């Protein structure tokens, strides 16, 4: 099933295009910029219905605001499943030729896969190219592919270290600023209390690639249909070496992120830190309210002392599928939701901005988080957003690659396989799949 999905998308899009010929433009032969921009304005004028597939909770408010501002537009927000499930549903709908939404939430790591599968509309002609300076660098580069703009960034996830201050204080352990200190702290905490772990990890593709990203590793190179996968660079090696220590000494809680056990660990302090995206505060407040006041935010530990390297973890964009029936109106909605008033409203509901204006606004930076003991946590997080390492790219089939992470790298967590061996296996399996899909894959 999975192996054929991309080909199926291509085929289905071709069929859809053939059917729709004469009514809408398909593919590259888009109308000139100006007329498309005008389209957006007249589409708003004419009104209509926009179906949005998204799971991001703050979009509820945006949809309501948008309908209030444009009474002729009806926004139907549908939670068609989270992450993978929604992508499968989207692929099925595109393949079936009906039922695709007008707007879909797509995580950054998945944008490439849908863009290259020609399932997404290039938004540049609708006016997206005018937002060159609107968004921060990381998310903005994530939504562009081969000169096209396939989505608008909705939020971002620059990484930071969330740590349980109470636990660190109780055991007299200093908050780590480098990954070597992190390993030391892991040992000290676990020694002081065997139930205590520095963090949880059972193998998470997103977290692993993000830490490699921060360490300076750039395993994926994509140029058209030429793909390079190489886990042999210095950054990857440094990550694997350090993380291997934590694995070997059993210093990582065997708890899967987002499970009820995980939330329990966050609230009772048995998981002491999380290196995770800046969108995490909202989840802390709703998922572990009992630990309110215990947690703080610090910059992500560094691989070299004194450095200021960062990476992104998670984050999503809003895209317009080619199968959408009202693309201009769909674009009008995502532009509203991701820029200007819509973006600001979402930030006030707890989303972490991808827009420069919101990221630099005084109100945002000076927000005191009661959950973090009154800390102005956004100062740390905004700094992290500025320090995200450049030049990172995901595979054009990262959704698939992530789905086989636990069969390959995951072995390092449950057997005597090392992380380095696991990454090798992941590389080979990803390369094999890429070749099957018609990419020329090299190192």
């Amino acid at each position, binding site marked *: 099933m999975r192996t054929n999905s991309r080909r199926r998308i291509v085929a289905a899009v071709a069929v859809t295009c053939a059917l729709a010929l004469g009514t809408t433009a398909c593919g590259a032969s888009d109308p000139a910029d100006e007329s498309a921009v005008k389209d957006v304005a007249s589409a708003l004028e004419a009104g209509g219905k926009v179906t949005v597939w998204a*799971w991001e*909770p703050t979009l509820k408010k945006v949809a309501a605001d948008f309908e209030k501002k444009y009474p002729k537009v009806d926004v139907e927000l549908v939670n068609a499943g*989270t992450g993978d499930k929604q992508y499968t549903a989207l692929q099925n709908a595109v393949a079936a030729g009906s039922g695709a939404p007008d707007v879909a939430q797509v995580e950054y790591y998945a944008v490439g896969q849908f863009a290259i599968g020609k399932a997404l509309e290039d938004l540049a002609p609708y006016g997206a190219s005018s937002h060159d300076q609107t968004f921060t660098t990381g998310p903005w580069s994530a939504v562009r592919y081969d000169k096209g703009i396939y989505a608008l960034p909705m939020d971002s*996830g620059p990484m930071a270290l969330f740590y349980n201050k109470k636990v660190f204080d109780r055991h007299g352990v200093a908050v780590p600023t480098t990954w070597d200190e992190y390993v030391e702290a892991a040992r000290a905490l676990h020694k002081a209390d065997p139930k205590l772990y520095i963090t949880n990890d059972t193998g998470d593709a997103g977290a692993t690639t993000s830490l490699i990203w921060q360490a300076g590793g750039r395993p994926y190179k994509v140029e058209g249909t030429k793909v390079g996968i190489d886990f042999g660079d210095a950054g990857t090696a440094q990550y694997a070496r350090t993380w291997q220590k934590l694995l070997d000494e059993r210093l990582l809680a065997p708890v899967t992120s987002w499970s009820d056990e995980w939330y329990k660990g966050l609230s009772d302090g048995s998981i002491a830190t999380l290196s995770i995206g800046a969108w995490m505060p909202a989840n802390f407040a709703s*998922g572990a309210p009992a630990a309110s006041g215990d947690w703080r935010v610090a910059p992500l530990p560094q691989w070299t002392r004194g450095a200021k390297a960062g990476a992104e973890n998670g984050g999503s964009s809003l895209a317009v599928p080619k199968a959408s029936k009202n693309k201009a109106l769909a674009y009008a909605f995502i532009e509203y939701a991701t820029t200007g008033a819509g973006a600001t409203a979402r930030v006030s509901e707890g989303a972490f901005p991808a827009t420069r204006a919101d990221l630099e606004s005084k109100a945002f930076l000076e927000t005191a988080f009661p959950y973090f003991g009154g800390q102005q946590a956004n100062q740390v997080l905004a700094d992290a957003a500025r320090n995200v390492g450049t030049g990172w790219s995901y595979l054009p089939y990262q959704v698939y690659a992530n789905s086989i992470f636990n069969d390959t790298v995951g072995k390092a967590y449950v057997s005597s396989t090392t992380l380095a061996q696991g990454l090798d296996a992941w590389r080979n399996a990803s390369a094999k799949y890429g070749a099957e899909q018609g990419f020329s894959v090299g190192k």
Partner: protein
Amino acid sequence: MITNPADAPSDTVERAVRPRAVPDTAVEPGRTPVARPPKARPRRPKRPHTPLNPRPSVPLTLVTGLVLVYTLLPLVWLVINATKNQQDLFDSFGLWLGKDFRLWDNISRTLTYDDGAFVRWTLNTLLYVAAGAGGATLLAVLGGYALAVYEFPGRRAVFAVVIGAVAVPGTALAVPTFLMFSGMGLANTPWAVIIPSLVSPFGLYLMWVFAAEAVPSELLEAARIDGAGELRIFFTIALPLLRPGTVTVLLFSMVATWNNYFLPLIMIKDPDWYPLTLGLNAWSAQARTAGGEPVFDLIITGSLLTVVPIVVIFLLLQRHWQSGLAAGSVKE
């Protein structure tokens, strides 16, 4: 055949008939078999061992007890944990009450959370069960009766098709069904759940077999001679006779529709048309999203509320089912 204990001959009657069917000595293990004068008999009257009053067996009792615990434990866990708030769920022992008793609060929050989505999902489920399972039962009764009573060419072929259809799991048909409904433009509408639920090959087969046993052809012939039309015969004579089988099929299809997950999962994308199974899963997925609110307490309470109606339906219908089958089994 399952028989209702209430209908069985009572023990006292039986004892009166055969007062000394079993000798004293064989009854209670561990007791020395000494001959005693009749008046020194133990106070508890000894009963003969019948299938309804079996010889006690310690290992068998233990095994049955274990199975009982194994079956009931998840339900007990569910009931206990529906009384806790999210923090107590994390902190307290799973099989004992938490600090606060929050059952009523949990129920009212479950019903109102997310703009009352749970109520909407319950109504959807009821719709799917009423239309899907009700329709499936109706079709199975009509079809089963027709196949059992009327001779017509191609009956054997129908038999082969029905038996074949029983063997195909619904899951295997789900994807082709989705593509078909999608092609007809019915995907993401309640019809996509109701129409496939209408087909119950097993129900049809069951009704067929039942009708062949329960509706004597002599009775039908007598009615025909008296001048009754086929429809009248079906509704006034056959249908009451078929009631126990009907209830059985209704019970099976209701439980199947109520618990159906996969079919709605692939058919329905709009949460407004979710059944409870999908809705609860959507709440559970919330905990796995950035910015999503984990509501483990509401999921557990919601699961309890989802289980209760089906248990009630089962207990209510089971009585008809039991006595009916018993009646059928002794009919000559």
